[in-house]
């Protein structure tokens, strides 16, 4: 179970990962449009009030392209035997944890809860926190942190299996690749 959740790349073949990753990616796009969830960046999950199927699909494709564009050359530099299919599967699988955030915005629930807070940020002295709001923020923050940690663990393990990375300089490159992939996805979403 631990391998399945945190390092499926170690055990499952590229065909199995591609099938599972592809099905979950389609599910992610459909459910993101139903729950108005934006995956507007490799690491990002934001809630909105209207996300069309086209927008959700576009964001998903940009995230995949950004990861492949950055992590494939990085992987090739670490180990010339790195395969495109392993990096592509990585880009599909690492988004799975973020899909667990989507139920929070069924009927725009999370968006409607957080929108007044965002509007009040310009005047923080007027912020009113009800106990229900504090509980919501605490629980959603815990979930978001858990999802982020899970995503990073999956990304690291997948990249490690794909490239056989071991050295400290390779780990530094991996960290840089995350930052660059995030920037690339943001830039692509902005200009396209």
């Amino acid at each position: 179970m631990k391998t399945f959740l945190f390092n499926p790349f170690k055990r499952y073949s590229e065909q199995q990962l591609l099938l599972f990753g592809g099905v979950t990616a389609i599910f992610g796009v459909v459910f993101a449009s139903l729950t108005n969830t934006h995956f507007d960046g490799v690491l990002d999950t934001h809630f909105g009030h209207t996300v069309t199927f086209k927008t959700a699909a576009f964001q998903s494709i940009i995230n995949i392209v950004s990861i492949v564009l950055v992590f494939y050359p990085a992987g090739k530099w670490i180990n010339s035997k790195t395969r495109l299919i392993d990096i592509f599967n990585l880009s599909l699988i690492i988004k799975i944890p973020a899909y667990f955030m989507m139920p929070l915005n069924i009927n725009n629930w999370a968006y409607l809860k957080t929108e007044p807070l965002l509007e009040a940020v310009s005047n923080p002295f007027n912020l009113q926190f009800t106990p229900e709001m504090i509980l919501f923020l605490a629980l959603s923050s815990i979930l978001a942190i858990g999802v982020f940690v899970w995503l990073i663990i999956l990304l690291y393990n997948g990249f490690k299996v794909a490239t056989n990375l071991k050295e400290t300089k390779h780990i530094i490159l991996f960290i840089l690749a995350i930052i660059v992939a995030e920037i690339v996805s943001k830039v692509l979403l902005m200009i396209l």
Partner: protein
Amino acid sequence: MNPKLPIHCPACEAALKVSQLLCESCSTSVNGTFSLPLFLKLQNDEQDFILKFLLNSGSLKEMAKQMNISYPTLRNKLDDLIEKIKQMQTDEDLPL
């Protein structure tokens, strides 16, 4: 029971050498100082890995299926083993 061939000294961890060989048929023994072949200096699981690789005609994909692990995991294992053998050859200047 098939006892495991010890390759390191249990006291100081240094590599062991063969000092006696025995003919089971006539009990003739040969004494001397012989180095273990490089293959026997590998861990048991590494020897098994090489044997499986050979028996699968070098097909990593077939081996990965049999071992229930992914292709890149197996390829990494092979690369690590190649690196280890190269290092052992460099250290001891030994042929296979």
